[in-house]
């Protein structure tokens, strides 16, 4: 630490005092063997290229082959055959539809609830610290544990949900995660619960960047709570709201662990998200090429979502 302090001191001494923008134009860090920034980038770039970019390209290529696990013949190119099969695979499109319902069905309520909670936490309320502390819990938990925890809640016999409903006189025991009609809504609630804190914290940070004077001025002008929200809060919050919603939409469309633990995709495929479907296809049935094609279709859809988000953000920047 003493060396750092010395460096800092000498740095201060050498910078011409009181000269605004001192040191510009910037002297480039000295020459020598380590002059090129490539040297510093390489340690991260190599693993990224070898274990991320490379495999992704390989994965896209696999979608055009008949790759299978435990295959005796060599893997061959089959062109767009996987995609043609996929087009007629009603099970896949079922799961695709479920994936979209799940992504929207989690993201929208999650956003509304998180917005409400963020607005509350922005007020000076007594239990605020507790809410902030509790908000960490779902965020920090392994998704597997979140799934296990809610299975305990939903348990038909020993779960607290059915017991509470019994106490309130609201009907007989339900098999929440095993029922054809109740499974998807039941996992949606868990999805909302699991992602809400993260969204809340992001929105809260956005709220706290809103200039306070604007609120006060609007209040002095006699604006009601709703008017203040519409004219002051929302415009300032919009970029954060847009960003976090777009990311949530994409993350939710790609989710796996939560539903894998809760229902395993059942009953009767009612909660089989695209990731679960592709996982089973690849690692239970060994259809690597076909599963890779599913991945490609998912990428295509996500690209559209991502493009919408980027366009929205650019438009937001223009508006300002």
């Amino acid at each position: 630490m003493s060396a750092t302090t010395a460096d800092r001191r000498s740095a201060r001494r050498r910078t011409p005092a009181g000269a605004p923008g001192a040191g510009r134009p910037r002297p480039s860090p000295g020459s020598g063997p380590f002059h090129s920034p490539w040297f510093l980038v390489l340690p991260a770039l190599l693993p990224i290229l070898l274990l991320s970019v490379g495999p992704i390209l390989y994965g896209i290529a696999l979608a055009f082959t008949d790759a299978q696990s435990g295959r005796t013949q060599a893997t061959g190119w089959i062109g767009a055959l996987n995609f043609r099969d996929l087009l007629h695979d009603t099970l896949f499109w079922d799961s695709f539809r479920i994936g979209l319902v799940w992504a929207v069905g989690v993201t929208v309520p999650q956003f509304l609830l998180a917005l409400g909670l963020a607005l509350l936490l922005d007020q000076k309320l007594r239990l605020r610290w507790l809410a902030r502390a509790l908000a960490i819990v779902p965020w920090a938990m392994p998704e597997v544990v979140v799934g296990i925890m809610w299975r305990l809640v939903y348990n038909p016999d020993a779960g607290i949900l059915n017991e509470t409903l019994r106490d309130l006189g609201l009907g007989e025991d339900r098999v929440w995660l095993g029922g054809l009609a109740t499974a998807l809504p039941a996992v949606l609630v868990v999805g909302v619960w699991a992602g809400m804190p993260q969204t809340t914290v992001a929105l809260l940070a956005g709220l706290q960047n809103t200039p306070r004077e604007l609120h006060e001025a609007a209040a002095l002008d006699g604006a009601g709570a709703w008017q203040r929200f519409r004219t002051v809060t929302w415009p300032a919050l919009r970029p954060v709201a847009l960003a976090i919603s777009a990311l949530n939409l994409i993350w939710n469309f790609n989710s796996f662990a939560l539903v894998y633990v809760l229902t395993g995709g059942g009953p009767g495929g009612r909660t089989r998200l695209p990731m679960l479907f592709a996982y089973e296809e690849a690692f239970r049935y060994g259809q690597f090429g076909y599963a890779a094609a599913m991945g490609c279709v998912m990428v295509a859809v996500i690209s559209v979502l991502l493009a919408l988000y980027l366009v929205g953000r650019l438009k937001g920047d223009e508006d300002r």
Partner: protein
Amino acid sequence: MSAFRTSGPARFGQYLALVAYLVFLAFPFLWLISTAFKPAVELGSPHPTWIPRAPTLDNFRQAFDEQPLLRAAGNSLLAALAAALVAVLVATPMAYVLARHRSRLTAAATGWVVVSQAFPFVLLIIPLFLVLKNLHLVNSLAGLTAVYVVWSLPFALWMLTGYVRAVPVELEEAAAVDGAGRLRVLVSVTAPLLGPGIVATALFAFITAWNEFFFALVLLKTPEKQTLPVVLTHFLGAEGVADLGPLAAAAFLATLPSLVVFAVIQRRITGGMLAGAVKS
């Protein structure tokens, strides 16, 4: 916010809403804890109660008997520590370059960071599985760690780039005038000031790996190698019939490290996440 008065009824409504949120956030977690400490008799009772009548640690003992929890936790710890360490080591210099230079490389790296956040992992895991299999790194923690490093890099880069930007560039320029090379500047001037940011990033990478499930499920085949989240799913049994008490006990234990670490770094992560999502 206190600049304008909130009327009594409105305030009451706010507290009502806050309590509703608190209940919604807390009740599954409280139920998990309650279940973990209940004896088998109470778990079999048709009318479960919130507070265990005869709290017991039997479930914890049974959980350790049924599944290799300690070894799984050891595996998780090893993979997560190694991943966090390597991720920070390789990400710090790159983040430094990203923060200090504008070039096509930084643009490409930023683009990759955005895309990688959105990528469906199934398209990544199939080729990775094949590659790691050829390298005999399937069912090995080394292979999993490598995947975790790359997986946590985007976020690590994002966080660290923000921390580097917060270091006054004048300090580096002064050192450069003195003839220090780029590496020298990074090691002796910038890195020491990045300390807290590097720790926060490493902890985040650690938690990400500790909690991760999908890659571990695919890559680790034998119980001796599996990480804690994968071993936890073994409690669920083949037909989804679970021994509720030990299941709850094990799940509760698996959460504790994450909770502690997360409580420490929560604020820093929020900042990094927002910077990434909104400003970049």
